[in-house]
């Protein structure tokens, strides 16, 4: 616990937010941008460049787009299209020196590409979806849900980068045996030592349970463990199979740590709540911690994401409608618990703001992207940066 407290040394200072910017250049009432992705990795910062990915239907079919801007610039550059066929749930990870790797589902399988430039790499020959990425230095991992018989299972690949050429170095299912039920929505975190942690939704217990495994090198994975400390099983009346929990997200944290945040319905009368579990470096996650404060108790939370960095900063983002309409909320780890919920200024108030994604840059600045809904004018992809006061 002392380690966890030390990792939160900077958690009490408030954030100072920049004026928000609009990321997408095209919008109308018939265009629907989405920031949904496995591990909610829609924004990354590399060498002073911010990159945002999303999907929308401006071209008559769902396509994935990427927009960038120098951190100090007043506007995003015109977005580029990443995909040729129907595209879903894009993610982006920072590689350093202004380079990124993006991944997405297209034509029923997972793809990746180095940016800027770079050719598109097909990650799997099988039907695959819900691809995600994690990178630390030159170590790049991808994970996706791959069709294996009746169900999907989680596959993790280590990617190699030589010059501008991206390739698959290793590709392994987390479990060799065929899945007994559906698996999906993987999340990844990789640390400086090259190890990788993968979490995912798993239905082997006949309800949705976030599970987790680790590997030192992406070749052999530890036996999966539950992230949730809620047991599976029927109710006292012999009904159902257990409470629901979904969409796990992961971040590397504090050099050796990994943190998970997910949506959890253990209190079934208040909808999904945001829960977290921390691994301080032991490869074991501790007890589950409720993230949102009591003012959010009677409200359903959605689109939860964890954001952390090697400096020990840690926070969770989500949206809920406790003030009447959906707003983006933030809660920071103070070393013992997640603190009071704070509305992100430009992503709260009148109208509906939802679907946050976020990242911390090398200087500790927080970059948040969200959807600002307007049924008549069309939804905007919005961005703001926050620095410590």
């Amino acid at each position, binding site marked *: 616990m002392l380690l966890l407290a030390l990792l939160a040394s900077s958690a009490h200072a408030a954030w100072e937010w920049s004026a928000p910017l609009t990321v997408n250049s095209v919008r109308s009432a018939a265009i629907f941008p989405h920031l949904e992705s496995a591990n909610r990795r829609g924004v990354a910062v590399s060498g002073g460049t911010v990159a945002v990915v999303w999907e929308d239907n401006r071209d008559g079919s769902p396509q994935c787009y990427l927009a960038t801007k120098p951190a100090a610039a007043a506007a995003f550059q015109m977005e580029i299209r990443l995909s040729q066929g129907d595209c879903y749930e894009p993610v982006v990870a920072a590689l350093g020196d202004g380079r990124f790797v993006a991944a997405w589902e297209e034509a029923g399988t997972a793809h990746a590409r180095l940016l800027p430039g770079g050719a598109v790499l097909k990650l799997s020959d099988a039907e695959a979806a819900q691809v995600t990425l994690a990178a630390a230095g030159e170590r790049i991992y991808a994970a996706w849900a791959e069709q294996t018989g009746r169900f999907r299972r989680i596959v993790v690949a280590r990617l190699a980068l030589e010059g501008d050429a991206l390739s698959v170095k290793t590709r392994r299912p987390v479990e060799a045996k065929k899945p007994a039920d559906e698996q999906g929505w993987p999340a990844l975190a990789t640390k400086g030592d090259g190890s990788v942690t993968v979490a995912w939704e798993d239905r082997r217990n006949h309800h949705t349970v976030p599970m987790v495994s680790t590997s030192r090198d992406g070749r052999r994975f530890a036996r999966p463990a539950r992230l949730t400390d809620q047991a599976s099983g029927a109710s006292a009346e012999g*009904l*159902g199979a257990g409470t629901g929990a979904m969409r796990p997200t992961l971040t590397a944290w504090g050099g050796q740590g990994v943190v998970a945040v997910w949506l959890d319905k253990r209190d079934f009368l208040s909808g999904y709540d945001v829960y977290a579990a921390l691994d301080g470096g032991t490869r074991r996650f501790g007890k589950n911690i409720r993230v949102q404060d009591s003012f959010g108790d009677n409200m359903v939370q959605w689109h939860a994401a964890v954001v952390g960095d090697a400096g020990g900063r840690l926070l969770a983002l989500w949206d809920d409608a406790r003030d009447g309409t959906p707003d983006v909320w933030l809660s920071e780890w103070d070393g013992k618990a997640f603190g009071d919920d704070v509305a992100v200024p430009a992503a709260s108030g009148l109208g509906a703001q939802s679907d946050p994604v976020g990242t911390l840059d090398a200087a500790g600045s927080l970059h948040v992207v969200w959807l600002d809904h307007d049924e008549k004018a069309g939804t905007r992809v919005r961005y703001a940066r926050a620095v410590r006061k």
Partner: protein
Amino acid sequence: MKRIGMLLATGFLWATTVLADPPPGYPFVGYDAGLAAARASGKPIFLYFGRYGCAWCDHTNKQTFSDAALKQLYTKNYTLVYVDAESGKRLTLPSGERITEAELGVRLQAFATPLFVYLTPQGDKIMQIPGFKTVQDFRDYDRYVRGGHYKQETLLEFLGGKS
């Protein structure tokens, strides 16, 4: 041996489907197929928003949807749609927006499952009802929806006026 394997597989399928899926024997279909079928038939949509493993869904299936007359009433008069509250399966809203089944829960602000949503054949929401309901409840909702009473009065007003 092959036959035993098939029987085991069938048993497994049954075991998984009874835990929290649509009630057995009802012709539930996915959202997109249901919306297309409703437009073609002119039947209103009865959307069952359930969760895999949900105890109250299981309870409702066993206590309420096991009623043969209710099954006949809803099968005959509604397009039956099942949506999995935690699924990443995609669907297309009447607006043309593509979202996941789980995201539909966000749009419905679904607190709990089961959640029952009645929609016009064009996909416009008439009302949504959360939680366990009895056979009589579903008979009342049917009269309210198919009788067109929702156009003039709220469900509470309608139920307060019943004999």
